[in-house]
């Protein structure tokens, strides 16, 4: 009879019994619905060892790599250690701020070094907590090899979190970090597939990480990054991105602004320009980050343009009400 470790306790699972039923039988609260592997409500994670293959059918490939599986399709044949999908949010890490700079009007870059080992995939997000107990999600714009976590922060009018960060987070400050989480990161298994990255505002931050990660992993397919802003001053990191495009023949940087003035900035919305230039997206991998309405609408459009749902990664940057 296999034993399964979950939230600090050991549970016996009957031979042939699926993990969901076993854990429910022990009185645990595991959300579930269809119990046939379709709805993925009962998703759990086995971070240390791969779960049975059958339990990962239909799971996004990059999440499968991190050990995510559906518990109703998992019949343990050996002992396992599992956790809830968001278990990483329960552990807090301190990171020391080592760098801060202005990237654009009202947008800053903050780099912080975690005090202990912090595993993440570039493009995932963490929750930052202020000393006042306010907690918000920020995408990681850096790679593990950089040695620091980088965040791009836009100041929001009366924003509790961003107000604190702009006013008080300087070199030497400490950040409380929980995570990482999210599925918005690169998957190494399909290096030849073309990639479309569309971000507005600081939605650029995870996309920079994903593009750099893909290029570092030797991605051979074309990578098109569209960054959108109302005016050109919001197109931050453009020098870095142009340099990246110069270094890699398969990386294309497309800055877009509603009020474009320069020749090398396209006039209009990033999502609309991206779709006009790439109307057929069958076989593409798509990442969408930024304004929630843009993300939701574009997700539908890229799906109807042929991209598979499993290949569309969307990260809406929701602004919390005051």
């Amino acid at each position: 009879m296999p034993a399964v470790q979950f939230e600090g306790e050991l549970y016996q699972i009957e031979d042939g019994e699926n993990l969901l039923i076993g854990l429910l039988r022990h009185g645990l609260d595991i959300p579930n619905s269809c119990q046939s592997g379709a709805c993925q409500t009962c998703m759990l994670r086995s971070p240390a060892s791969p779960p049975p293959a059958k339990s990962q059918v239909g799971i996004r490939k990059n999440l499968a790599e991190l050990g995510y599986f559906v518990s109703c399709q998992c019949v343990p044949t050996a002992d396992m250690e599992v956790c809830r999908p968001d278990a990483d949010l329960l552990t807090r890490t301190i990171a020391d701020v080592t760098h801060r700079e202005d990237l654009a009007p009202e947008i800053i870059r903050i780099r912080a070094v975690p005090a202990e080992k912090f595993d993440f995939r570039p493009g995932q997000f963490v929750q930052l907590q202020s000393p006042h107990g306010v907690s918000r999600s920020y995408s990681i714009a850096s790679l593990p090899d950089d040695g620091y976590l980088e965040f791009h922060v836009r100041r929001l009018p009366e924003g509790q979190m961003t107000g604190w960060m702009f006013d008080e987070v300087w070199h030497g400050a400490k950040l409380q970090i929980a995570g990482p989480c999210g599925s918005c990161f690169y998957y190494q298994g399909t290096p030849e597939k073309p990639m479309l990255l569309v971000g507005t505002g600081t939605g650029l931050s995870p996309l920079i990480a994903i593009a750099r990660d893909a290029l570092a992993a030797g991605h051979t397919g074309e990578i098109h990054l569209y960054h959108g802003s109302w005016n050109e001053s919001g197109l931050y990191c453009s020098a870095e991105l142009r340099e990246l495009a110069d270094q890699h023949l398969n990386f294309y940087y497309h800055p877009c602004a509603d009020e474009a003035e320069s020749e090398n900035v396209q006039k209009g919305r990033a999502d609309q320009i991206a779709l006009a230039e790439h109307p057929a997206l069958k076989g593409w991998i798509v990442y969408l980050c930024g304004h929630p309405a843009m993300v939701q609408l574009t997700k539908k459009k890229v799906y109807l343009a042929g991209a598979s749902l499993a290949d569309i990664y969307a990260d809406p940057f929701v602004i919390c009400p005051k």
Partner: protein
Amino acid sequence: MSESLYEKIGGQAAVEAAVDIFYRKVLSDDRISAFFDDVDMDRQAAKQKAFLTYAFGGPANYTGKDMRAAHAPLVKRGLNESHFQAVAENLQATLQELNVPADLIAQVMAIAASTHDDVLGL
């Protein structure tokens, strides 16, 4: 033991193939696409996968009560017979596109039709 409908159609792999075609048809269909404007696409696709598993005679934990509760807000927004038929047409077209034999399509359509009253809250 003879093969079940689910096995004949191709099981989970058939569901995966069908959901991609079916959901795209539904979203592109002007008669019904407005009902899907505010939904989370991943969750909706998962629900459709569960529904297709059920309609294909597969191991789905389906209850008429869930189907009724899930569609009740849509009924309030005007979901009616014509919309049900539109979805049914899309399902049929999906199966034809996947070259499912006609006798199996008929069986799937019969299962789908059995949800009629629960979906429309009758």
